[in-house]
């Protein structure tokens, strides 16, 4: 740091940055130029205007983890308001610029090696590559330097023409090309207030006598003479008279009338009172303005309300109310990307956009019209103003692109977050009222689908079944027999042992009956408790040839499940029966080798298994488990259908699909 004495008044003037050549003496407002050890006085500097910037010389901050100090400032006035270029000095010796206005912060660095595009080739919406990145021209600016303070690397003069172009890239990247003299390219990033970790900010509650007020805070309406209060002088460019609805130009103390009495704004009913303060997302906001906007679709006007919020450090935000649904809207500095055109170049495509890792689907494109204005605004909005807009949704967020054409052509993007009406009511004491319809970015109350969980449960159920199949299911008894035609008594008793916990016993009968039925009366008798479980199974099989075609019916297999059978020693009584008077079946002996073929009517085999997994329960549980995902999916789809019915892409209905044929 170098300290020299002002040639005009002798006051000590510091040069913090080695690149600084020019400085303004705080004591006498002289412009000083430093040439090696010599100092010259170049003249007096005009006073700064009070633009409500929270920064000041000596403010410290951090960019990319590196500390910097604000050492100089150029104040520029464009049609859209004041813009400050703060000259910043990093501890590592680098210097850069911090563009700032209305809560927008752009840290950028002069890149002399990057060639500036021809100014004549620039148009809002045009895309171009600069320093290996794609950018889109978002604004062409023309203004004048108001004044400056601190130290600067070049001479600035009040009234000097300031011409520049703003370009935005994907994410936070941005470029400013300064065409005021030799074109210079500045490349940097747009950041939020909280990203820069500022300290030693200006106390905005104290009036700085060295800064000229842009407009009075208390004024009388030039039309009706009613007293007015301007909340944000120096930033607000328009104040609408609360009494007669006249629009007052507040960019100068002359207070021109932009329009005379207008009833639309006065008659507008709002949920939030102008001047109301409330905390949202841990920041206190004041409601400065209220707009009513509308779109007309097929001769029907759809209107909504937008409330302008202001915080001196964060800048402007919006609260938007539509059909009782509320959104908190903030500006987006990066450009959303579109897969088809990579980076949007002036168009608002009817497709999907990528922004901050989310995919936004196009919802609606429209021409919005301002239908009523009340309060104060940072631009001179008028009733009847039109803009081309497109909304893209990814609940609970909505990206909105807006293209303003004409002399002040501009592309702006904003991001809305759906918030609960209760938040707005609690923060601002607003009368929010009930919501109707479905908002474009309203979160679906049905939280996602349940199919992933269902798959997991199905897999778990399958594992359970496999586990029981492996550890259970064992054969405890098997017998084979033949039913002989002339046998007096067919009933037989066998013994078997069941072990383990009470579980099922599955009795499986297989018989080679042919054109006959067989019934097996059985009983499982517990030897300890003397309790018998009586049951029976029948099999039958019939076949033949009718009109040359073979037919068959019935089954030779049968199964009975005996549930919850305790362990113990058992007797199994088996008594086969069949119809009488039938002829023996010559094929039966194949089932029991050695039996006389002439007497056998049928053979049979009986198996008894213990702990057999019941797959019917698996399928029943799977069915029960699949019901909620199906219901969930239907409810989810129903809500989405309501959402998209309001869009440019309504889902096909049976009538519409029929019409299209």
């Amino acid at each position, binding site marked *: 740091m170098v300290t020299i004495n002002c040639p005009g008044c002798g006051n000590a003037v510091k040069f913090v940055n080695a690149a600084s050549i020019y400085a303004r003496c705080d004591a006498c407002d002289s412009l000083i130029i430093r040439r090696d050890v010599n100092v010259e006085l170049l003249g007096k500097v005009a006073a700064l205007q009070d633009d409500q910037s929270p920064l000041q010389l000596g403010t410290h901050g951090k960019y990319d983890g590196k500390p910097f100090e604000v050492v100089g400032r150029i104040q520029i006035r464009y049609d859209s308001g004041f813009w400050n270029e703060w000259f910043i000095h990093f501890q590592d010796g680098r210097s850069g610029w911090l563009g700032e206005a209305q809560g927008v912060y752009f840290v950028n660095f002069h890149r002399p090696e990057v060639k500036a595009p021809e100014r004549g080739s620039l148009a809002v919406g045009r895309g171009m590559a600069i320093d290996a990145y794609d950018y889109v021209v978002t604004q062409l600016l023309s203004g004048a330097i108001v004044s400056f303070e601190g130290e600067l690397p070049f001479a600035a003069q009040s009234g000097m023409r300031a011409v520049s172009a703003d370009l935005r890239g994907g994410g936070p990247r941005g470029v400013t090309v300064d065409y005021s003299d030799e074109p210079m390219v500045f490349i940097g990033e747009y950041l939020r207030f909280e990203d820069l970790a500022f300290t030693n900010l200006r106390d905005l509650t104290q009036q700085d006598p060295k800064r000229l007020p842009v407009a009075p805070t208390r004024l009388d309406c030039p039309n009706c003479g009613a007293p007015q209060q301007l909340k944000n002088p120096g930033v607000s460019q328009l104040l609408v008279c609360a009494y007669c609805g006249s629009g007052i130009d507040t960019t100068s103390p002359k207070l021109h009338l932009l329009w005379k009495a207008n009833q639309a704004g006065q008659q507008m009913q709002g949920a939030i009172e102008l001047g109301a303060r409330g905390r949202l997302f841990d920041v206190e906001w004041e409601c400065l303005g209220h707009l009513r906007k509308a779109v007309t679709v097929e001769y029907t006007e759809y209107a909504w309300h937008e409330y302008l919020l202001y915080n001196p450090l964060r800048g402007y935000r919006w609260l938007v109310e539509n059909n009782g649904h509320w959104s908190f809207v903030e500006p987006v500095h990066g450009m959303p990307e579109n897969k088809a055109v990579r980076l949007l170049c002036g168009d608002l495509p009817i497709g999907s956009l990528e922004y901050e890792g989310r995919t936004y689907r196009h919802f609606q494109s429209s021409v919005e019209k301002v239908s009523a204005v009340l309060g104060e605004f940072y631009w001179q909005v008028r009733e009847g103003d039109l803009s081309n807009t497109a909304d893209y949704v990814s609940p609970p967020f909505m990206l909105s692109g807006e293209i303003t054409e004409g002399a002040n052509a501009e592309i702006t993007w904003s991001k809305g977050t759906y918030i609960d009406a209760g938040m707005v009511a609690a923060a601002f004491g607003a009368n929010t009222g009930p919501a109707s319809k479905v908002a474009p970015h309203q979160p679906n109350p049905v939280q996602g689908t349940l199919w992933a969980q269902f798959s*997991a449960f199905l897999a778990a159920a399958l594992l359970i079944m496999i586990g*029981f199949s492996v550890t259970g299911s064992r054969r405890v008894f098997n017998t084979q027999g033949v039913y002989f035609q002339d046998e007096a008594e067919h009933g037989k008793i066998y013994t078997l042992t069941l072990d383990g*916990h009470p579980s*099922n016993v599955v009795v499986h009968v297989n018989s080679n009956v042919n054109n006959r039925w067989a*019934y097996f009366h059985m009983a499982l008798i517990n030897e300890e408790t*003397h309790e018998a479980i009586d049951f029976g199974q029948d099999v039958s099989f019939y076949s033949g040839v009718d009109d040359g075609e073979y037919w068959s019916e019935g089954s030779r297999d049968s199964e009975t499940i005996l549930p919850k059978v305790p362990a113990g020693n058992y007797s199994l009584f088996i008594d086969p*029966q069949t119809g009488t008077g039938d002829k023996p079946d010559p094929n039966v002996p194949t089932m029991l080798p050695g039996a006389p073929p002439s007497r056998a009517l049928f053979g049979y085999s009986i198996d008894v298994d213990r702990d057999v997994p019941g797959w019917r*329960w698996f399928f029943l549980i799977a069915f029960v*488990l699949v019901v909620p995902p199906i219901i*969930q999916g239907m409810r989810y789809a129903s809500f989405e259908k309501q959402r998209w019915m309001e869009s440019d892409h309504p889902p096909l209905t049976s009538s519409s699909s029929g019409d299209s044929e």
Partner: protein
Amino acid sequence: MTGPRLYTLFGILMLMLLGWLQYVGFAFTDFDRVRDVPRSVRNNPGSYRSHYTWQYHHTGGK
């Protein structure tokens, strides 16, 4: 039964139910349980049938 948490709870309960059904070998069908079957009957299959088959008059066939 629409919330993921509720469905998770429901699913776990269903899996527990499945495990229990398999463990006890549950079935909705049940059968006549005849108590105090005399040992002599078990030793004589023919006599057993005369006592306990009155409900099984299967006619079968076509």
